[in-house]
């Protein structure tokens, strides 16, 4: 049961760690605490820790908590240092990776080592998961940071808010049957029409309030454009309009009728040629820069 207590401890620490991230004053205090503990456990590590500015709590935690005998610990430590060195080297390569990466790397290393050392323990863990489903999530979390064991996605077939179950439910809900759909559509259309009607009324009311009356003119030509959007409606088919438009074009004066038109056409043609030439030249410079002329 000591094991469990540890876990609770651990959980609390995790919480406090998260809080730390947000509040810096607290964080400092925490680092001190951490350092003190580290001193007891592993004074050699201390300097390094400090340099890394408390970014890797987890590393510290694990060393503190694990109850392996000293020899294996030292071994692990060595291994970890080696790995860390490697990581640090790679870190230098891309300066963009700052603290966060570091923290992460220690974490993942831990996982690595732990997995190797404690496969037996993890098996035990699994059994525990099965028995106590209630605080499974908590166990998961702590178990993971504790022993680097992979987090297990839980309640696969019970949880309807996520995953396969959700998708299937969504699917079934989206197909309620033709009748229901029809009904929904009808409802929508009725309410939509009502809404439109209301909007129209409101507008008219507004106009009336402002001292205007809407005068309707019904005589003469049939209404062909919608008063709001200016879009032709009713009798005018778009195809017909387009047809008319295309018929109109040739009635314009021929493009080469006036001398100035000819001159302009010539000029614009020359301009077009020149611009194309300029573009080509620019492009060739780009190609040259990209060494696009080497056929091998």
């Amino acid at each position, binding site marked *: 049961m000591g094991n469990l207590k540890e876990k609770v401890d651990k959980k609390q620490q995790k919480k406090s760690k998260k809080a730390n991230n947000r509040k810096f004053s607290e964080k400092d205090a925490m680092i001190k605490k951490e350092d003190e503990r580290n001193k007891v456990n592993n004074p050699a590590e201390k300097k390094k820790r400090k340099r890394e500015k408390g970014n890797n709590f987890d590393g510290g935690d694990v060393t503190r908590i694990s109850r392996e005998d000293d020899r294996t610990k030292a071994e692990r430590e060595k291994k970890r240092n080696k790995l860390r060195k490697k990581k640090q080297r790679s870190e230098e390569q891309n300066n*963009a990776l700052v603290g966060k990466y570091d923290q992460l790397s220690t974490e993942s290393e831990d996982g690595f080592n732990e997995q190797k050392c404690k496969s037996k323990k993890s098996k035990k863990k699994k059994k525990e998961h099965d028995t106590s489903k209630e605080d499974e999530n908590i166990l998961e979390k702590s178990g993971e940071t504790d022993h680097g064991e992979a987090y297990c996605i839980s309640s696969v077939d019970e949880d309807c808010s996520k995953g396969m179950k959700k998708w299937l439910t969504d699917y079934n809900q989206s*197909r309620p049957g033709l009748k229901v759909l029809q009904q929904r559509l009808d409802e929508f259309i009725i309410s939509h029409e009502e809404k439109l009607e209301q909007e129209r009324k409101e507008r008219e009311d507004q106009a009336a309030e402002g001292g205007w009356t809407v005068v309707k003119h019904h005589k003469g030509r049939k209404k062909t454009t919608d008063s709001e959007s200016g879009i032709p409606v*009713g009798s005018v088919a778009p195809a017909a309009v387009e047809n008319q438009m295309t018929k109109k074009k040739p009635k314009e004066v021929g493009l080469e009728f006036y001398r100035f038109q000819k001159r302009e056409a010539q000029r614009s043609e020359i301009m077009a040629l020149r611009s194309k030439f300029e573009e080509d030249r620019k492009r060739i410079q780009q190609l040259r820069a990209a060494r696009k002329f080497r056929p091998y």
Partner: protein
Amino acid sequence: MDADTLTEPMDFKVSELINEVQIEHSPSFTKLVNDTVSSIQNSIDKIPNNLVVTGEEAAGFVRDIGADKVEFKFKKPKSIAIGGSYSIKCVVKPDVSVDLFIQLPKECFHEKDYLNHRYHAKRFVYLCVINKFLKSDSSFEKVEWSTLQNEARKPVLLVYPAGKLPEVPGFFVRIIPTAKSLFNAAKLDLKRNNVRALNQGGTALPTPRYNSSILEDMCLEDNTEFLKKTFFGQKALGEALVLLKVWARQRDSIHSHDGLNGYLIAIILSYLVAYEKVNSSMRPLQIFRVTLDFIANSKLWTRGLFLQKQGEVKILKEDRMLYKESFPVVIFDSTTHINLTFRIKDSGFSELQDEAALTLQCFGKSGDSAFEDIFMTKIDIPAKYDYCVRLSLKGNNEFYSSGYCLDEECWRLYEKKVQSLLSQGLSDRAKSIRVIWRNIPSGCSLENGLSTLDGEPLLAGISLSSLDKAFRVVDIGPDAENKEEAARFRKFWGEKAELRRFKDGKIAESTVWESEQWMKHLILKRIVEYTLLRHLSISKTSIEQTVDQLDFSLLHGVEDPMSFSSSLLGAFDVLSKRLRLIEDIPLKVSSVQPLDPAFRFTSVFPPEPHALASEKASIPRPHKLTSSCIQPLEVMIQLEGSGNWPMDDVAIEKTKSAFLLKIGESLENSWGMTCTATEDDVDVFLSGYAFRLKILHERGLSLVKRETGSDQGKQVSSADQKLFVRSQHSSMINGLQGVFPIYGPVVRLAKRWVASHMFSACLSEEAIELLVAHLFVKPLPFTAPCSRITGFLRFLRLLAEYDWTFSPLIVDINNDFNPSDKKEIYDKFMLTRKGYEESSQNISPAMFLATSYDKASEAWTRLSPNVLELRRLVAYARSSANLLTRLVFQDQTESYRWECLFRTPLTNYDAVILLHGDRLPYPQRLLFPSKLNHGRLVARGNASKAFQPFMLPGDLRGSLDKLKNKLLVDFDPLRCYIADLEKECSTLKMWYDSLGGDAIGLTWERSCSKKRDREEASDDEDPIDVLKAVGEAGKGFVKSVHFLKAPRLMN
């Protein structure tokens, strides 16, 4: 030439190209050449005169070419001189070499040494002595054997100097022995026999090729002198030669021992100069064109060319005829002793003419890409030919059973034999067949004999004439009454030949190659295999044909699902008839159009008919696997015009749904079809297929047009517009598919490739179809591909090599574009590239695909791929193309086989999600179950029991209606999962395979932090926690989540 004085962009590019490939004769380079030559000279000077040399120096070689009396006393070469392209300043990078002619001294040879390969043996032994002394000299890095134009009996020495120059990596000097006036040329006339071993029943046969081989050495110096004279001071001519060399070198099939080489190109050019077809006022490109035109179209080839003016020709007409009979191409040199093109084969020359003609077409048709098509595109055997056959003949002793070298070498004879077998076996199925055996690798040791020269594989390329012919099932041979022909036919085909009576009453010999429709591309393979096995003593395993190696990726189980296409089209016809007949809806259906790629044969997995989805559905038998999902196929409907449609978008969509529901109901009532619907989609079942109906409302279209017309910035694409574009695309591709039946399979391979490398989200299916369409409508400098693998290779190369940043890809399927259209496209393209100057990432779309229905490339590539995705895509395409090319050329080691083209490395992602393969909707489409050994396992989960891709026997009990309800239409957990992830994790980018992969790659989105402070960014969740959440979201579907790389924080 000053670049600014040139007006044509093509001239611009050509002058740049020449600058790039031509070697500057700089003092340092000249010094390197001179130093190397003089140290060679020094080494040779060290050889003691009168050193007695015997055939023992190279016993194997002497034995294999069948020479006797090889002893001689070594004398110094009569002269050592630089020749070849260096002497006319036309060396072309990348392989920079200088030819050094060493004139063999007369004293070492007897008068009659032209007989029985004695000259060849002595020539080699002489070189062996030089080789020995060169090797002991420290001023050379290495000395290697090679051969002159792949002729094993004429070795040359390659000398690599120890001193290096960075401009010319891999520089070497080629030592070529010459035999000026060693023998009496009349003795080497082409009618004479000089290899006594070659006879037929006692009568000696003429040995024209053997004679030419000796004559070539005798005339080499004179002809080089002649070339020097022609090219001296002719800058443009020299540059034209450089261009021609680059052109030929890009074309594997003509730049070979039995085709063109630099020397022959120079000869042809000097012929054109001599006959004033080319003059000094022409520009290099003009000369290039004239030369190609001459090669492709001149009638003079049938008579033979004479390097000397007609008046001075001393050759008799009969002799000329004789030459024409012995050789397919004849170019007499200036001394008229020898045909310089004696190595060119029939197939080589026709290939040459074809390539020249194609290139001339490029000038006219390619437009702006002419330069790239002509000079920059590699036209190697895998990309050029539709089918490639590779024979590994290592250790096969059949081909040299009658000696290695008689008149011709055994390898050349074997080439010819394979060529004739293939052309007889394939008859008019093949347009052209080219057999090339580059059997001599450089650096081989020739001293020990010629038996080791069979290590390289023999390659045969086959171009199909037309698919109809190539896929023909029955070959009709000669009439049965024609006894002689029939007997020959029987002899060739053996037991495959059958006497058949045809419909028109004719009785004829024939061969039958029965085959399923979807396996017809294998007919050719079977014929080739049968023919070669029957007539050559080789084993089946030594024949490797690139035909069907990639088919595995398209199969559904053991069969290509394409075989269901005809039943699908039948069902569609029935559906469209029924739709038009519907009376009980306010507006009648006026047209029905297919949208789904399955209707145009470009779907990787067109659906199979489902037992539960047909009207006469029966409960499937439990022992048969019944899928629990069904893919719906989209079909577009247009209704009669009406003025009563609502005006706003939402209402239009709702009205459409209402219409579709009515249609569904009506179909249910009058035909007993099943209809199922959601708020957005209506699906109906017919003959085992599910069809998803969509309505195109034309006025919605014009609405949008007007809006975009008034406000360019606001790009609305309503559902109607999308539908419209898709219908245009569909009909266009359908038309293309009708013209090129092989288009479908190529697209399917391309789509499968894109998906299996997890680019499903980056490149839409339609974009892939357009890319492949480009290969067919603008095939230059090739012809349109006629096989799936060739088409696929060209697709990969297009993706990898096209200049996406600076050029739009215009896919003009029906030849709709006039110049003003093209200008419009270019203007639009330039607009999208405006931002490039500021930042190379600032271009969108990164891939500009213009078509007649979408000139601004808005339909398919507007959002993806972006620049980074495209870069990744290009890198993948390049490595796949290289692998595919290597696979055609030679067997690869175990780990790099064909399936690797579709196996994607999972290590290139920051994190990877592995899915439960048996929870995919179609598990049989999974190519390779993914495994991952890298990274850290973050989370794992069990498979959900709620979903099974196949119906369990237990489910199959119960009523039919209930079962039908269990059938999931368009249910895809992967799509649902991706959608959920996109909603939840903005910091991750998903890479996935929508065609049935069981892995999802994740990368941290770089632009995630945007303008937020660093503090906030670091406050972001721990990546491990993010990944856990990712795992949670895919509950029941996710097998495991692996963490590989931490996110980079960008400011």
